[in-house]
């Protein structure tokens, strides 16, 4: 396998402009002769499908929801970054680029990140033109806020529903193209494999989730915009349907998987309340601006928080990081919370949680002031937990939230399979080992509106395509394999439900490949994943039949893929013998317990090639060079 990044030469500010001039164009009259498949209709997929159709290509778009508007991008709360410098506070493309490289702990490509910062400007323009109701000042101009510890106010937002408003903008653009007839939309249709012919991606195999019918679709290129894999942990902030199936099946057909162990854990989520817990809810990080985080000093102290005097409370972030305190970065805040709970000092009914206390802020500022700042968040918290956070401290605990890893792509967003493009969270491209707040929406829309529509044209213009329809033998063969797998899942007829396997896998991954990892834990996890996978295929019980709407069957297919994928994630974490960004290896830390990056040996992207289920994948390295931002160690002391 060749990892050719195709990063253009020249100074970093000129690379993308020069590259766009060098890309081949498809004649306007010929565009309608090209069919493009887009799988997934979140921010990246919907924006790409709409834009490609506007250009004149014939697009087929697929999603497993009943409508493209349901994709999980809808749940993003905080905002979207752009280097507009509307606040005149010294922001610039360069500064956004610099912050993203540094925030990613020097494990992303400089050229990609610079392009992202450049395009951030166009995204805001585009969204406003679509009618996205961003927050505004009294003068009618756009409002901004500082987010995630950034030194400038570059985040655009629509109350706590920025993802929803941006997705609806892209969804409406997509619906417009559906009405015109340039996009054929397939809702309630799940992609189960890609079809590779003569080494190129030429189509997909899908299952109609209502009728169960398995069918194939041919095209000149395939775009995956299928999101991240946080649900490998079972409990995460992701929607229940989020899964790794599309990217995993593409990986099994030859697409390299990059940095799968880079998974972000968000520090402020509501802790689980029992065995029945099905997902975790994120509480905005802004709460850490006024809330103080603490646990009891003594293990197993089960007094109500109001009865624990200050002298017996450990405000551990303020103690360990006096200058950043409760605003320490996500990975540090998360890891320290887990440590406190592992020591037996966790709070709440299950002992997994730490207090986020507003007592002092209410005294200092008044209840009214706190209510104005966080009223809606306090309501959500009370709705879920039944506790009043004005009177009793909130309980929070970290939860998996976003995956920086994904299918490897070159500068053109093409995977190692020619003709297979990967955009949004599904690729690995821009966030390195850690994503900054309000950057996921930016990347999804940059890929979909402004990068892929250019780069895919270059591929279509340069490639000589054999005429293909879906009666060709690779289509029939792949379809057979998919049908066989569905039949096999139903035939096991064992005793354990799909969810019980998913829960067990999730707990294992959380313990061994979550916030902190060790050689011993990972080696053991790989063994246990294999055992669990064997047990799954010997004892899973999937109800119903395949010719029907069957939610157990849908879940079973996804969990079967997580059970294969989890192993690669552990291999990646095991191989990366350093701590960087969200990846913390217990063996590689400073005496004070901080992450110790190893730039001499690990300044590269790990791209894994599939070998066989149960066998270690093969590693390829894409070296990372830092020509513009000097390598530096983070410090929050």
């Amino acid at each position, binding site marked *: 396998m060749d990892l050719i990044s195709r990063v253009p030469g020249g100074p970093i500010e000129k690379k993308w402009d020069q590259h766009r001039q060098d890309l081949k164009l498809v004649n306007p009259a010929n565009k309608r002769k090209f069919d493009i498949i887009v799988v997934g209709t979140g921010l990246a997929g919907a924006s790409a499908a709409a834009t490609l159709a506007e250009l004149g290509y014939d697009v087929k778009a697929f999603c497993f929801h009943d409508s493209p508007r349901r994709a999980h991008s809808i749940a993003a709360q905080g905002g979207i970054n752009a280097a507009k410098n509307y606040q005149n506070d010294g922001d610039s493309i360069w500064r956004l680029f610099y912050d993203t490289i540094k925030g990613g702990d020097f494990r992303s490509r400089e050229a990609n990140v610079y392009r992202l910062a450049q395009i951030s400007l166009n995204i805001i323009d*585009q969204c406003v033109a*679509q009618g996205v*109701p961003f927050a505004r000042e009294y003068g009618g101009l756009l409002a901004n806020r500082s987010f995630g510890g950034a030194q400038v106010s570059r985040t655009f937002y629509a109350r706590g529903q920025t993802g*929803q408003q941006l997705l609806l903008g892209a969804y*409406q653009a997509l619906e417009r193209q559906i009405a015109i007839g340039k996009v054929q939309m397939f809702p309630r249709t799940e992609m189960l494999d890609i079809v590779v012919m003569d080494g190129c991606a030429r189509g997909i195999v899908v299952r109609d989730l209502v009728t169960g019918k398995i069918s194939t679709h041919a095209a000149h290129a395939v775009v995956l915009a299928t999101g991240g894999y946080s649900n490998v942990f079972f409990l995460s902030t992701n929607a229940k349907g989020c899964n790794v199936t599309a990217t995993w099946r593409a990986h099994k057909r030859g697409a390299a998987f990059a940095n799968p162990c880079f998974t972000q854990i968000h520090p402020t989520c509501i802790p689980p309340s029992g065995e029945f817990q099905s997902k975790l809810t994120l509480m905005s990080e802004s709460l850490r601006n006024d809330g103080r985080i603490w646990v009891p000093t003594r293990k197993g102290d089960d007094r109500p928080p109001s009865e624990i005097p200050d002298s017996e409370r450990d405000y551990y972030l303020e103690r360990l990081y006096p200058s950043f305190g409760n605003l320490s970065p996500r990975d540090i805040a998360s890891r320290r919370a887990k440590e406190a709970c592992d020591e037996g000092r966790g709070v709440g009914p299950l002992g997994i949680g730490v207090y986020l206390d507003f007592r002092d802020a209410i005294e200092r500022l008044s209840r009214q002031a706190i209510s104005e700042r966080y009223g809606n968040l306090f309501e959500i918290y009370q709705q879920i937990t039944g506790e009043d956070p004005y009177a009793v401290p909130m309980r929070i605990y970290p939860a998996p939230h976003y995956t920086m890893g994904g299918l490897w792509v070159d500068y053109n967003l093409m995977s190692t399979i020619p003709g297979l493009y990967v955009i949004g969270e599904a690729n690995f491209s821009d966030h390195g080992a850690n994503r900054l707040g309000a950057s996921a929406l930016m990347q999804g829309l940059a890929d979909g509106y402004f990068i892929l529509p250019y780069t895919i044209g270059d591929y279509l213009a340069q490639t000589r395509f054999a005429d293909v329809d879906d009666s060709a033998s690779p289509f029939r063969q792949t379809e057979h394999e998919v049908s066989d797998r569905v039949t096999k899942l139903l035939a096991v007829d064992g005793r354990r439900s799909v969810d019980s396997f998913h829960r067990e896998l999730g707990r294992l991954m959380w313990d061994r490949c979550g916030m902190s990892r060790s050689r011993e834990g990972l080696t053991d996890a790989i063994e246990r994943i294999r055992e669990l996978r064997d047990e799954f295929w010997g004892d899973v019980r999937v109800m119903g039949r395949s010719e029907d709407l069957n939610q157990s069957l849908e879940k079973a297919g996804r969990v079967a893929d997580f059970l294969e994928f989890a192993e690669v994630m552990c291999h990646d974490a095991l191989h990366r013998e350093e701590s960087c960004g969200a990846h913390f290896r217990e063996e590689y830390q400073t005496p004070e317990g901080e992450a110790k990056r190893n730039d001499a040996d690990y300044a590269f992207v790990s791209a894994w090639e599939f070998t066989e289920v149960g066998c270690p994948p093969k590693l390829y390295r894409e070296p990372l060079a830092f020509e513009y931002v000097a390598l530096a160690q983070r410090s929050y002391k």
Partner: protein
Amino acid sequence: MDLVLRVWRQTGATDRGRFVRYEARDVSPDMSFLEMLDVVNETLIEKGEDPIAFEHDCREGICGSCGVVINGSPHGPHGGVTACQLHMRSFKSGDEVWIEPWRAKAFPVIKDLIVDRTAFDRIIQAGGYISVRTGSAPDANAIPVPKRDADLAFDAATCIGCGACVAACPNASAMLFTAAKVSHLGLVPQGQPERYERVVKMVATMDAEGFGSCTNHAECEAACPKGISVDYIAQLNRDLVRANVIGAGTNGSSSIAGD
């Protein structure tokens, strides 16, 4: 707590469907309503029975996937929340809970509690957008938008497309859904060029899809998990009258409130 559930089971669009009685035991007050259904489904699978099909995804009240009628109310007894945000502490042991799908001609049942809501997508296709190609936008601050208009537009734009408004309406009208989008786009300057054509086309599509007319019951507003106001229906009607006067769109429509 222990509950008795009466759940609508229907194998497909052609099946007549029926309520089936289930017992939910040891329900924790901290469970969400959907987690309670998860647990019931696990016990059904253990017994070798087909689990109850229900739609859900984000489970934090924003994707609009979930939605069932609980004891006669869409999304359950409380205003302002979706079924996934409803917690079992709202019930007490011994309660009987009736659970059924949205009932509307334009939302045919697919299975059990899952209905087909693609009619909503077709209403959007009729004009629920601003026609702007990628790349042709002016600078985002080139056109100031008064804060009041931006806030009102946002309030309308928070619609999650769940369909509770239709389920709550005695006429199964989709006026609140349609009005929310018409108002959102009609309140921002970027939406003005297509404003009157948009309202005519969207209302015509709503009628053609088999949704009923609005007769001002305002049940929709009470059921809406995002609290979208019926004021937006008045806004739609004003735009529709003006559209008819100036002859925008193709033809008029019978959906004016009180008609």
